[in-house]
């Protein structure tokens, strides 16, 4: 055990070697500088560019999704609005039709009533006129009848009496 320790120490496992330190430093710095120029620059910039590209495409996809969702929402809203609108229009049309029908019915009824009244009035008038004509006719007929009766029943004596009475009347009235 002891000898192995001596071997380790005397063997120079930990002995400093300025030449090796110098060469390590020189080699490492040269490798670092060359690789920085030759490899790390392009590789890292390419990686970063790709990362950015991926990030931007993800962002773009997200924004496109949002946009599509917004459009869908808008479309749905529009559709709902259009539905409401059409319903309203139909209802209004129905209402209007109903109103129109009612109005027309009322108007027709009123017209009919008016016509009926007019007709009634006319009928009444005609009736009256007819009655007048009838009355005149009847009067004429009566007069003709009376004339005939009178003509047939009248004789000289009575006539004389009548005239006498009339003269007497007149005379009395003059007094």
């Amino acid at each position, binding site marked *: *055990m*002891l*000898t*192995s320790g001596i*071997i*380790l120490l005397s*063997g*120079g*496992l*930990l002995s*400093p*070697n*300025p*030449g*090796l*330190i*110098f*060469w*390590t*430093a020189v*080699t*490492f710095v*040269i*490798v*670092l500088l*060359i*690789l*920085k120029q*030759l*490899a*790390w*620059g*392009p*590789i*890292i910039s*390419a*990686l970063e*560019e*790709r990362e950015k*590209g991926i990030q931007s495409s993800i962002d773009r996809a997200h924004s496109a999704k949002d946009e599509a969702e917004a459009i869908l929402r808008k479309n749905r809203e529009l559709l709902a609005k259009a539905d409401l609108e059409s319903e309203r229009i139909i209802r209004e049309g129905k209402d209007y039709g109903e109103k129109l029908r009612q109005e027309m019915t009322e108007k027709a009824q009123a017209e009919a009533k008016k016509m009926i009244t007019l007709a009634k009035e006319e009928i009444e008038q005609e009736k009256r006129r007819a009655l007048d004509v009838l009355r005149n006719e009847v009067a004429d007929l009566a007069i003709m009848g009376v004339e005939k009766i009178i003509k047939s029943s009248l004789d000289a004596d009575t006539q004389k009496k009548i005239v006498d009475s009339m003269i007497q009347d007149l005379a009395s009235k003059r007094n």
Partner: protein
Amino acid sequence: MKPVIVKQSKAFLKVLALCVPLLMNVDAPLFASPEQPVAAVHDSAAVMAGEAAASHEAEAHGAEAGHSDKPGEVIMHHILDSNVFAFEPFGEVHLPKIVIGGFDISITKHVVMMWLSAAIVLLVFGSVGSSYRKMTPKNAPKGLANAMEALVEFIRLDVAKSNIGPGYEKHLPYLLTVFFFILLCNVLGLVPYGATATGNVNVTLTLAVFTFFITQTASLKAHGIKGYLAHLTAGTHWSLWIIMIPIEIIGLFTKPFALTVRLFANMTAGHIVILSLIFISFILKSYIVAVAVSVPFSIFIYLLEIFVAFLQAFIFTMLSALFIGLATAHEGHEEHEAGVAHH
């Protein structure tokens, strides 16, 4: 379930790691006495098995020349840095020694391995980077670029972004480089003839010092000098500062120290365990042990090492990101300021 298994296997490893050096030491004196001249030759040549140098001695031992060394020395030779790159049966490559101004900056085995992993990282990410340069955001990545993208994206999001928070982009190149550099160094250590550069304390120390400087710079930038100094008092009463300030300053240095030791020890330990397991069969001179213990267990440890190679690269990066995140966190800063204003 998996963490439990890992924990159990780690506990098992600990037991093994305790037993193996003991076994080695039991036998060491037996080997040591007849081999004194050989060991002397080996020390000067610093060759692992030393067939060529020890040929005159090897005659006596015949075919057993390979394990005539002290196992501990062989293991240490494998773990440690050296100026010789040995390709065991084919020969070896002597690496150039460079000394400038009294400093020995010679190219060693670990430097070569480091350069190799740096070259592989550069090659892979050069091609991946160019394919990304050609790519528009519309194309998907394919092949190598796609495979690397998963790792880069993991470091970017799960390590950097989640630990540092806003402004993580500034530290991303460092974290990515440190991850792939350490990963490649770890993995190349598992390749035959390879050596683990990250199993050398000097390498991990340098990397941890980078993290330390980046952390402190980020902290200074985020809070200013006043806020940075206020951090050192931890928002306590001034009478406690004499205790708190040293503790906080020690705390600054323990973080990179922990990073250094964690990576170095993990990478070294695995290799030591594998080699020790193999040496059990040589020490006991038994084929049964080799078949029943050494080979299966070392395969198991090897697989564990592959996992550890990734894990340690990840942990180093993760902790670096965590330290940077802690240093730049704004909530703590405001708390401290309020505390300072209160006193």
